[in-house]
């Protein structure tokens, strides 16, 4: 925090503990959304995010797909950025320039246990608070959801990373599977410290004038308001099936969306597309709204409302 924070940012009521980490607020920046430079990560923290997740980083540098990589649809966005990233080595170097205390979580992807094993030596010295494994990208062949649909593969990757790094490991799951609960349970058994639900839904849009798929990659991931009911369902199902904390992600852009996620069982929420529609003020807006809700409903802390819908 570099600036004087408004009330919501400093209220103890908003503070949450997840997997051993203390966040001053339950609102996080989602993976892949602006988190590609230290400046941009820092700006999200300055804007009220309780933690930030980086862009997903792989073993090797990788260019994004040709544009169009993002396109608006009726109720959200499709993206097929293609996991462009500078590679784990370069990115870790960048992170070292930042203050060690910042609540930064590094997102990682890989095509299987091998990729992850080779990243581990570098990750050991990377000054982040934890890792999020992106086993759920719906538009890049051989990584992401193709890894994350297979409970055994999930289990292997998670145990491997857990053994290698001494920090909390979150597993980001996809709704593009037979059973998100089965995947979450596999991650839990393998030692994951938390589950992030959900990544985008595999989707597509076609321009009817030219008859072309709009995204250069044809397929992309659907994010935004459209997917919130799917995300809320996943959070509910997972949080009633595992003991580790769940971070809710998908279509959160207003405080009421965030409260819905918390009630569904999320210990914190991530914001992706909301950044496009609301700008950086999305974090403080949500934080302030949650605080108001807690006060109006007589709760002392945001942790008291996590999973309250389970009792019905």
């Amino acid at each position, binding site marked *: 925090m570099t600036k004087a924070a408004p009330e919501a940012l400093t209220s103890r009521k908003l503070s949450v503990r997840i997997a051993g980490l203390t966040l001053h607020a339950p609102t996080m920046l989602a993976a892949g959304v602006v988190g*590609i430079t230290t400046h941009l990560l820092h700006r999200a923290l300055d804007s009220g995010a309780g933690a930030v997740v980086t862009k997903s980083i792989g073993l090797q540098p*990788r260019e994004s797909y040709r*544009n169009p990589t993002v*396109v608006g649809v009726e109720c959200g966005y499709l993206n097929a950025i293609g996991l462009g990233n500078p590679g784990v080595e370069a990115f870790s170097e960048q992170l070292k320039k930042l203050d060690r205390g910042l609540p930064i979580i590094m997102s990682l992807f890989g095509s299987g246990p091998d990729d992850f094993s080779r990243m581990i030596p570098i990750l050991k010295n990377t000054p982040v608070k934890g890792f999020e494994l992106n086993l759920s990208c719906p538009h890049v062949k051989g990584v992401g959801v193709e890894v994350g649909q297979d409970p055994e593969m999930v289990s292997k990757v998670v145990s491997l990373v857990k053994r290698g790094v001494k920090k909390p490991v979150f597993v980001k799951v996809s709704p593009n599977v037979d059973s998100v609960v089965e995947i979450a349970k596999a991650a839990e058994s393998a030692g994951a410290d938390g589950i992030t639900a959900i990544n985008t839904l595999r989707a597509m849009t076609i321009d009817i*004038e030219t008859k072309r798929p709009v995204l*250069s990659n044809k397929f992309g991931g659907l994010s935004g308001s459209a997917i919130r009911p799917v995300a809320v369902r996943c959070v509910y199902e997972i949080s009633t099936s595992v003991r580790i904390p769940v971070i809710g992600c998908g279509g959160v852009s207003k405080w009421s969306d965030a409260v819905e996620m918390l009630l569904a069982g999320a210990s914190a929420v991530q914001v992706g597309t909301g950044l*496009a529609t609301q700008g950086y003020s999305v974090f403080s807006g949500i934080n302030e709204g949650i605080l108001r809700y807690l006060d109006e409903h007589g709760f002392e802390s945001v942790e008291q409302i996590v999973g309250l819908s389970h009792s019905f």
Partner: protein
Amino acid sequence: MSGYPTHSDRPRIVKVEESRIETETARTIFFRDEASLKAKPGQFVMVWAMGADEMPMSLAAMNDKGRSAVTVKPWGPGSNLLCSLKSGDVIGVRGPYGNSFTPKKGSVLLVGGGSGVAPLIPLSQTLQEIGAKVTFVLAGKTSGDLMLLGEAKKIISKPPHNLIIVTDDGSAGVKGLAPDAVRSLLGKEVVDQIYSCGPEKMMRMVFDLAEEKRIPVEASLERPMECAIGLCGICAVGKYLLCRDGPILDSQQLKAVSKEFGSNRLDRAGRVVPV
């Protein structure tokens, strides 16, 4: 083409109505698009060159008898394709995006190089309309590289306005680099505001000169862009997202990103590379 609702961040398909020759390779492409008509000088659109790429392009005209335009210099697959289009071909357009120049009365200096001249054309018109005294430095490598010269001449047609042409080789106007022309101008005249767009190293030199004289600058920068709506982060300049906070940065912001400005940017892998 029959109207149907589209998301504002979805390409709208428009016909190329004219592709005007600017230099041997560069073209100004005219099209009709409701939303672009309402853009402000300095804003850009994302232009979809189908099958190749989608690229940010400053609007060189918002409403030229109902048409809008972008001026394109070919570099890679996307811009090459755009420059090869004929009337009747289609492109996709979304936006307009980004902030715009702040028109100021008084004595103003515009410094444009290459395709960076584009957003300065509608700006110079607005500036004249609000009563500014406009000096326009229009630069290119050679006389054949000067873009939108016809438009500039039409607008900057009589005193007190002043059009100064600069070429590296002297094949037209003053010989030298744009910053040289700016230096000599600032030595002679009082300038209240500088607007600039073009190669980043040129803009950096202009900015440094302006800083010495404490003249406020607005510079329109270029970065790779993917989303144009503040999601992907690839357009980062320091803590700014050029697609939303820019493409125009003012002197204070330029100072804040002094390390990057004129020096480095992200490539499409998010690696730091020289501009």
